[in-house]
């Protein structure tokens, strides 16, 4: 408990036990309600749209879960998927983080065995809200270890509603972060619990929780770097204790082994730079432990001798080891780090070297308003929480401070990592709010007890003596020397200054009853509740309006009611009903997962983006003229090409807007695609001022074929807000087979090659010889 306030009123043991019992039951019910809140605030998309899986990545996870539930775990581990990245295929068992799919599969299996017939899709849609309730409970446990139950409950309710976490865990967002954030907080809770109790049992649980985290998300490297950093911090600030050793050393050994068990990590657990920090600190903590042990058994003089001897020998050995390590690490071109980790450490790395990582919108740095949008009130409660953590500073609170600082840095690099900041911000704000509430309620209690004492003295009772003396004893016990404070009516506003002046009191959890004037505390209490109200209103608005869009179904409100744009599913359904099972569909990589999951057709590239050259091939095909594009697609056995076009309805995330990435990524691998060819005055344009290369590119033609028929000859593109450049043209190598209702998805079929080319053979034969020496600048197509 934050402050046992019983001493100020009736300190009988029976009533305090009853009070504690009542408090515990109340806390339990509050936690239950927090779980229900966390679950229900994420259901807006199910209510507004339908119970459907959102976005792109969740469709892949859904497909994998379907496979798991149909074929069992052994086939899942050994699954080689030949319906994506044609003709390369993808080893699913070795490249996917299995935690999420195994969790959902287990839940489905358990429900089936209980004869509750929920479909796999329902289980997948609702996994995220269920696990966010668990995450709120884990936050309660973690903050309780740091500061006490009051702070724990506040932090839990803040996490249940924080918009940043809602954005990645709404019902339908079936992605890794849904379970990974729960695993993250739970692992941290078990680490702090081990640190506080020194029990090996919790250390074992900590390793198992870490294993679950490794299974779930690539962000586990955050844990395996944060915990060593904290251990190092504790050692350096002189807080080494044997509990620290028990908390850290088994985690490293068991954790590394368990991480190596997961196929997607494998031997990276011991060979990549992301894990080296943990090994380094493992060695450091052993050295420190040995030093403390020897210090314990030797006399101080002998210890000095030992120290000088060890230092002189140790420095030499250290230098040798460091030299070897540096040589090994420097020999790899990326110094042992993976591309994504490097882009986190050096934010400009991805844009220089790996355009694919730079092109994902989630990997961009966040803007300042997004901090307020995603954290709202927490953004300025966090500094107050940091100060509250320093008074008193324990191992657990230093860990939370370090966690916050690290996550703030990483959230500044990638907007996607604001999600890792959210629990830290909630914990800090919970601590701050709880401390504030403590001060206010304590002032009010003081005032009330003074009032009752005053009234009772008036009535001539002997009780006030009993009431006042334990109060005074409490006061005397806590303040060792200051006589001024014994007057309880003294108004004391500078609480923090007192804490600095009296450092010896800081280890006690009971504070001096520092009170504010009662009117100020009532008003401040009211304002704090109002602050909480603002937070709730904002969170509910964000959950309902900003983060609940399934992005596979779009809606718009106009004067004649609600329009629903279900074009994506229309196109995928057409594909699954009107094409052969083995037909290959080419599109930009964004739609790969959805195509394999919903249309059940083989795709060329998908969202996994593991093969840059393959993506560059598709990008080149889309940027080339029609014949060259046909050649590339034909060499990949493609039958159908799918483009997304938003010009008719004003859908801004269509392929023409993504075209610059096709050119850049394609140009990165195939030098005959040059970005300046497509730019007019440094801009991509599709109107009459566009470059001829742009107007001839396959993407332009496939997007705008017959577009003028929609608005009677003008061809006005609602997204780019101009009329298109080339209005009337025919397609020679493709034929349009399907366009959805709002023209958002357009599917084309590759025309088969003509049997004979009339009159062209002689011409082409005579043309090739004179043209090849002439065409030194324009290299036509690498497939010739």
């Amino acid at each position, binding site marked *: 408990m934050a402050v046992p306030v019983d001493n100020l009123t009736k300190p009988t043991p029976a009533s305090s036990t009853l009070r504690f019992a009542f408090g515990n039951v109340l806390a339990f019910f509050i936690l239950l309600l927090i779980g229900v809140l966390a679950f229900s605030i994420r259901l807006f998309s199910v209510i507004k749209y339908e119970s459907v899986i959102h976005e792109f990545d969740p469709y892949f996870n859904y497909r994998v879960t379907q496979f798991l539930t149909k074929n069992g775990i052994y086939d899942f581990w050994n699954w080689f998927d030949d319906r994506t990245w044609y003709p390369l295929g993808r080893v699913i068992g070795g490249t996917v983080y299995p935690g999420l799919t195994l969790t959902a599969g287990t839940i489905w299996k358990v429900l089936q065995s209980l004869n509750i017939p929920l479909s796999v899709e329902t289980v997948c849609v609702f996994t995220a809200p269920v696990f966010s309730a668990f995450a709120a409970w884990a936050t309660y446990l973690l903050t309780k270890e740091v500061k006490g139950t009051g702070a724990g409950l506040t932090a839990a309710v803040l996490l249940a509603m924080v918009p940043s976490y809602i954005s990645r865990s709404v019902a339908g967002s079936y992605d890794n972060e849904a379970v990974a954030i729960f695993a993250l907080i739970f692992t941290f809770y078990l680490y702090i619990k081990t640190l506080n109790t*020194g*029990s*090996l*049992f919790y*250390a*074992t649980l900590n*390793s*198992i929780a870490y294993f679950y985290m490794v299974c779930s998300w690539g962000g586990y490297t955050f844990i395996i770097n944060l915990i060593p950093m904290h251990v190092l911090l504790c050692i350096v600030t002189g807080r080494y*204790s*044997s*509990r620290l*050793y*028990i908390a850290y*050393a*088994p985690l490293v*050994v*068991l954790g*590394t*082994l*368990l991480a*190596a*068990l997961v196929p997607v990590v494998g*031997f990276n657990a*011991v060979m990549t730079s992301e894990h080296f920090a943990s090994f380094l600190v493992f060695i450091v903590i052993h050295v420190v*432990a040995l030093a403390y042990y*020897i210090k*314990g*058994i*030797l*006399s101080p003089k*002998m210890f000095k*001798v*030992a120290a000088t*001897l060890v230092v002189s020998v140790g420095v030499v050995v250290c230098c040798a080891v460091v030299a070897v390590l540096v040589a090994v690490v420097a020999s790899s071109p990326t110094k042992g780090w993976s591309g994504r980790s490097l882009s986190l450490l050096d934010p400009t790395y991805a844009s220089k070297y790996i355009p694919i990582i730079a092109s994902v919108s989630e990997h961009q740095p966040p803007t300042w308003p997004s901090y307020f949008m995603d954290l709202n009130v927490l953004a300025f409660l966090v500094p107050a929480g940091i100060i509250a953590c320093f008074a008193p500073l324990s191992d657990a609170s230093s860990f939370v401070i370090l966690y916050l600082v690290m996550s703030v840095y990483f959230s500044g690099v990638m907007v996607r990592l604001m999600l890792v900041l959210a629990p830290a911000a909630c914990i800090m704000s919970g601590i701050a709010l709880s401390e504030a509430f403590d001060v206010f309620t304590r002032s009010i209690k003081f005032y009330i007890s003074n009032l009752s004492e005053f009234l009772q003295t008036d009535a001539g009772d002997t009780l006030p003596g009993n009431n006042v003396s334990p109060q005074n004893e409490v006061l005397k016990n806590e303040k060792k020397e200051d006589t001024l404070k014994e007057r309880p009516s003294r108004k004391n506003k500078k609480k923090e200054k007192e804490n600095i002046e009296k450092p010896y009191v800081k280890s006690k959890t009971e504070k001096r009853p520092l009170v504010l004037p009662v009117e100020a505390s009532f008003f401040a209490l009211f304002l704090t509740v109002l602050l909480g109200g603002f937070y709730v209103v904002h969170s509910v608005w964000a959950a309902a309006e900003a983060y609940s869009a399934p992005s596979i179904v779009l809606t718009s409100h106009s004067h004649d009611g609600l329009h629903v744009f279900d074009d994506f599913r229309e196109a995928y359904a057409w594909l699954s009903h009107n094409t052969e099972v083995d037909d290959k569909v080419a599109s930009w990589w964004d739609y790969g997962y959805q195509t394999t999951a919903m249309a059940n057709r083989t795709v060329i590239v998908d969202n996994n983006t593991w093969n840059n050259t393959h993506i560059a091939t598709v990008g080149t095909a889309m940027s080339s003229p029609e014949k060259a594009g046909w050649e590339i697609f034909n060499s990949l056995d493609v039958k159908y090409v799918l483009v997304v076009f938003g010009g008719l309805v004003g859908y801004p995330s269509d392929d023409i807007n993504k075209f610059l990435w096709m050119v850049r990524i394609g140009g990165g691998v195939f030098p005959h695609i040059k970005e300046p060819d497509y730019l007019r005055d440094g801009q991509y344009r599709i109107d009459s001022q566009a470059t001829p290369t742009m107007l001839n590119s396959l993407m332009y033609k496939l997007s705008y074929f017959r577009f003028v028929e929609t608005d009677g000859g003008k061809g006005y593109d609602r997204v780019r807000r101009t009329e298109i450049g080339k209005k009337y043209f025919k397609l020679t190598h493709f034929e349009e087979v399907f366009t959805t209702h709002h023209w958002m998805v357009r599917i084309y079929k590759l025309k088969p090659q003509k049997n004979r080319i009339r009159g062209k053979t002689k011409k082409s034969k005579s043309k090739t010889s004179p043209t090849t020496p002439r065409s030194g600048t324009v290299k036509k197509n690498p497939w010739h």
Partner: protein
Amino acid sequence: MVKPATTKDDAHALFYSLRSAYSATPTNLKIIDLYVVFAVFTALIQVAYMAIVGSFPFNSFLSGVLSCVGTAVLAVCLRIQVNKENKEFKDLPPERAFADFVLCNLVLHLVIMNFLG
């Protein structure tokens, strides 16, 4: 003349004081220490073997070495918890410490068996 002790004398004095201080530890702790030394020694033998023979299959090497290191670390944790001079753990019954040790070892060896190949 009383000269300041040379480094050699210092080393001798250090060695003797260490030895006398260590012999004062209780027997059960000495047994645990022996176990730790045995485990570390086994790990070193495995590393030497890998250096001679090569590191294929790497998962077997990793699981072998990490099982030795892991059980050594867990034994050190047990020693910390059982040591009567340790003020932080005076409330912990040694049976509980040993039970935790056994449990953690079970989990460790389960993982090892899985990873051994």
